[in-house]
C-alpha cells in the first residue's frame, strides 16, 4: 500500500547526487513503495535541498534490516567519534 509514513528531519551538511555536491537542509525518511529496490516496501531516505528543486535529492532505498544496520552504524560511529573527543567542536 502507499503508506505515506514520513519523518522529516532538518539537516546541515552536503550531499552528492546527479547535480554534484549540494548543501542539504532536510531529509525525508519513509517506509513506502520504492522506485527501484526490488521490494514492495522499503525504508527510503531522501536527502534534500528543496530550495534547489526536486533534482537536489540523494535517494536511498533499503530493506528494513539494512536500514536498522545503517542506523546502528551511524550511532556507533558517532559514539566512537565522541569518545575520541572528535565531536567537541560540533
Amino acid at each position, binding site marked *: *500500500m*502507499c503508506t*505515506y509514513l514520513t519523518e522529516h528531519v532538518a539537516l546541515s551538511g552536503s550531499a552528492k547526487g546527479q547535480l554534484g555536491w549540494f548543501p542539504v537542509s532536510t531529509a*525525508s525518511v*519513509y517506509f513506502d513503495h520504492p522506485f*527501484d529496490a*526490488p*521490494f514492495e516496501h522499503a525504508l527510503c531516505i531522501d536527502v534534500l535541498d528543496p530550495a534547489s528543486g526536486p533534482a537536489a535529492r540523494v535517494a536511498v532505498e533499503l530493506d528494513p534490516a539494512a536500514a536498522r544496520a545503517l542506523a546502528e552504524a551511524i550511532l556507533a560511529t558517532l559514539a566512537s567519534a565522541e569518545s575520541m573527543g572528535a565531536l567537541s567542536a560540533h
Partner: protein
Amino acid sequence: MTPSYDAVLSESVTLAGHGGDPIEGYLARPLAPGPAPGVVVIHHMPGYDFDAKQITRTFAVQGYSALCPNLYWRDAPGASPDDAAAKVRAEGGEPDDRCIGDVLGAARYLRGLANAGGKVGVIGFCSGGRQAYLIGCSTDEVDAVVSCYGGRVVAGPEDLTPRRPVAPLELTAQLHCPLLGLFGAEDANPSPEHRARIEEELRRHGKDFELHSFDGAGHSFLQHDRPAYRPEAAARAYELIFDFFGRHLGPPAFAPAG
C-alpha cells in the same frame, strides 16, 4: 489482402487541469476515423513514468483515445518521475480536489477530439485506484471506472489528511457509473477484508459493479517492471478491463490488437 489500418499517435500534450491550470499529459490515440471511446489513465504513486505511458499507449493500440495527466506537474515541472513523486509523496500526496479536477480536464480533452465517441472511462493503479473510485463518486462526467488495487478506499479517521479528507468508501452512494475493481488476494491494502467491505457497500447501494481477486497476486501485480508482477493475473486482468470498457464505453475504434 492488406493489413487492417491500426495507426496510433502518442505524444506529450498540454491540457487544462484543475482550476484551468495548464498541465502536462501523455496522449495516445488511434488515427482511425472512430468513433473512439476515451480513457483517462491515473498514474500510480511512483509517478508519471515509463509504465504510465506504456499503459496509455496500450489503450490506444486497442482502439481507445487515452490520456494520462501528470498529476505532479505543478509540483515539479520537468523533473524526473521519481524526483517529482518523492516531492509530492513527502508533502502528503496529491490533493483529492486537485486530482479530480485534473482527471476531469483530461476527460474533457478526450471528448473534444475529432474522433471522440462521447464516452470516457477512468482507470487508476495503486493510489490511482483509490482516486478512480473517488472520481466515480464525485462527478457524472465519467462513464465507467476501473480501480486496480486501490488502497485506502476503505479508511478510518486516522488515515484521513487535509489533502485526503475523505474515505472514498463513504461516498459509494454517489457512485453513478459502473465500476470494475481488481485486487490481489495477497495485498495488504486493499486486503481481502477491504474488498469485502467495498463489495458490501456497493451492493447495499445497488451499484453496477464487478470485483475480481487474483490468487497469488499482491499489490502492483500489473506493474511489469516490479517483482510484484504476475503475468498470468495481468493478462487476465487486461481481458477483464477491455471487456468492461467495451461494454460500457462502446466499441473501440478498430479491432483489438492480437
